[in-house]
């Protein structure tokens, strides 16, 4: 019994030392974040803002907001010194969703001015999933997965999609508070979820995904009237083309309906065109221009043609969360 006690003491000490070493080495690897705020003012539009996932620059730079010319991706990478979990930007401002150093592990949406400085911070609940900013920089939108506590079953989660007033740095509304109609009837089921907002050029009109009873729908709404209506079935994470005529999105396909395939929907005719990317990818598409779309697959950003022809090609290595600033 005595030797067992001694052995236990040995194991306990080893465990304590091991745990301490793991924490200390992790903290030591944290390079001090460089002073944030100096954005790539010199880059000419259009350029692409993204999160850098370059493993060579060290863990302290993982997720750094970076920009690169849209026509020559990767030729120059301009780091900003700002670490983000998800980024989006337009010519007049952007959103960087960042971890706060709070013990609760919360996130905040940092509302960035055109020069890259933080203008406002908006607290977010849950794990960030999508972020978008309207072209004129008036509104922003974020989607987070609000998981319960860890005793909740792993499959139980809900999404929260917030509209943010970028000038005031305030939440305008949760999409759940909007009146949504489908075929003339108001949708008011308890399980309604929203995600993946995309704004039209006028900022007021937007598109998003509505999910209820295991199905997803494309909704078209207006911020000013707090209303939206269902206009198409089986659409997730819509992204409106710069000319405002088409929606790029992911659609559930396959026999079991468990594979996503990127499609483009022509809003006027309702025609759906599958894109050349055949992998099942979970991302919100971003239009590079009116003929090409960007998305993250693996640890790189890829591009694919909007008319369904061609083949996907690697656009930018070690990057995700692309946003085209035009």
């Amino acid at each position, binding site marked *: 019994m005595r030797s*067992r*006690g001694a*052995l*236990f003491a040995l*194991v*306990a000490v080893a*465990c*304590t030392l*091991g*745990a301490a070493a*793991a*924490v200390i*080495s*992790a*903290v030591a*690897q*944290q390079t001090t974040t460089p002073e944030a705020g100096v954005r790539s003012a010199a880059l000419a539009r259009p350029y692409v803002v993204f999160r850098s996932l370059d493993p060579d620059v060290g*863990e302290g730079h*993982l*997720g750094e907001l970076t920009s690169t010319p849209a026509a020559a991706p990767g030729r120059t990478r301009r780091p900003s010194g700002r*670490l983000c*979990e998800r980024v989006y930007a337009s010519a007049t401002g952007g959103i960087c969703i960042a*971890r706060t*150093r*709070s*013990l*609760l*592990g*919360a996130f905040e949406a940092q509302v960035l001015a055109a020069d890259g400085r933080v203008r406002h911070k908006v*607290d977010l*609940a*849950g*794990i960030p*999933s999508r972020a978008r900013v309207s072209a004129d920089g008036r509104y922003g939108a974020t989607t987070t*997965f*609000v*998981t*319960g*506590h*860890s*005793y*909740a*079953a*792993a*499959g*139980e*989660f*809900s999404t*929260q999609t917030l509209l943010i007033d970028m000038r005031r740095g305030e939440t305008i509304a949760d999409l759940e508070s909007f009146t949504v109609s489908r075929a003339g009837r108001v949708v008011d*089921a*308890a*399980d309604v979820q929203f995600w993946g907002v995309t704004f039209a050029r006028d900022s007021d009109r937007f598109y998003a995904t509505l999910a209820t*009873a295991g199905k997803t729908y494309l909704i078209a709404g207006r911020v000013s009237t707090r209303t939206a209506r269902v206009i198409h079935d089986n659409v997730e994470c819509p992204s409106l083309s710069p000319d405002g005529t088409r929606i790029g999105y992911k659609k559930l396909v396959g026999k079991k309906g*468990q594979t996503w395939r990127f499609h483009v929907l022509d809003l006027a005719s309702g025609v759906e065109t599958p894109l050349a990317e055949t992998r099942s990818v*979970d991302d919100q598409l971003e239009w590079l221009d009116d003929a090409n779309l960007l998305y*993250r697959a*693996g640890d790189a950003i890829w591009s694919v043609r909007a008319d369904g022809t061609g083949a996907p090609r690697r656009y930018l290595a070690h990057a995700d969360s692309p946003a085209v600033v035009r």
Partner: protein
Amino acid sequence: MYNVQDSSALVAGHRALLRPRTAERRVPRTVVLLGMTSLLTDISSEMVAAVLPLYLVYAAGLSPLALGVVDGLYRGAAAIAALASGFAADRRRRHKEVASLGYGLSAICKLGLVAAGGAVGAIGAIVMLDRVGKGIRTAPRDALISLSATPQTLGMAFGVHRAMDTTGAMLGPLIALGILALAPLAFSSVFLVSFCVAVAGLAVIVLLVPRHAARASTGPGPSLRVAAGLLVAPRFRALVVAASLLGVATISDAFLYLALQRHLALSPMTFPLLFVGTSVAYMLLAVPVGRLADRIGRGRVLLGGYALLLPVYASLLAPAAGLPALALGLALVGASYAATDGVLAALASSTLDEDVRGSGLAVLTTATNLARFLASVGFGALWTFAGLDAAVLTCGIALVAAILVTGIVLRATREAPAHA
């Protein structure tokens, strides 16, 4: 020096007078050690649980939707593992070894998470193995607790264990998020620390917990048929039915917190705080309520525990009250846990023959988990199709009915109160 002798005699006499009472209060060393194992293991597993969604979304690029699809499979695998391990532990009379196997499997899984990197398939397989580990250890561990305590102190023994277990569950997320606050995105460090803590927990059960002293019957344990026969004994069968009925009529935690949050228009950020509030109450009350159950009857306390939920459900139907009402509600939910979880295990242990304790507890756990799963699905469907108020009202009425039926069933097959 007759004075001294006198006084020592006096003390001895005094001790003798006190003995029944002190014996009643004493918690067996094995129970405390098993509590320590659970505390460390819960720190370890809740550390991972707290950061896993984040890790899957960021390192592995998986959507939580995809995670939900396979969850049903995991539950099934864990349930089968639980039944098999309960029986195997009884059959070989090796509760400690089987429980250790479960703790060991879960510990290795933490190291596996480090090795898996961002590979989604590997992470999924590891999470499943981790749950299987949990399935394996629960019934033999509870059997070991029940075999280490005297029949009169079962409620307190389980209370001590559950209080320690809950303490670990509360510390785990704090430690994990603390590490991530010091070193953002250092998930592998979280998994490594989690592994170290799990190994310490495993060391407690392997090196310090004694094998349950072999009783008179040292031969092989009951065969499957004998075990099955003992398990259909009227009292135990009644208890399984009762616990399942109560489980089906209860609103699951996730939904209850969601309902509270909607009803009181709380920010989703307060969600984890609701869990903390309940856990604090559970942690503080588990031991006193367990002792109360030993004294006034475990069936009574169990039913009382479920009755504590009724005012909480009623408050969801009443106009929204302020924060004090919320605090009271969370305290009631925590008290309800204290009066039902460990007490049910104690009650079941007292009705089960020692030879089939592991199998019996495994059957009971599986039945109540299934009941809770059905309750969760049912409540979700009711909420969707009939609205929140109707769903809460239905559960409330069902719970009253379940309490009444259970009361009658338990009375009919009643054990004599431990201290009557």
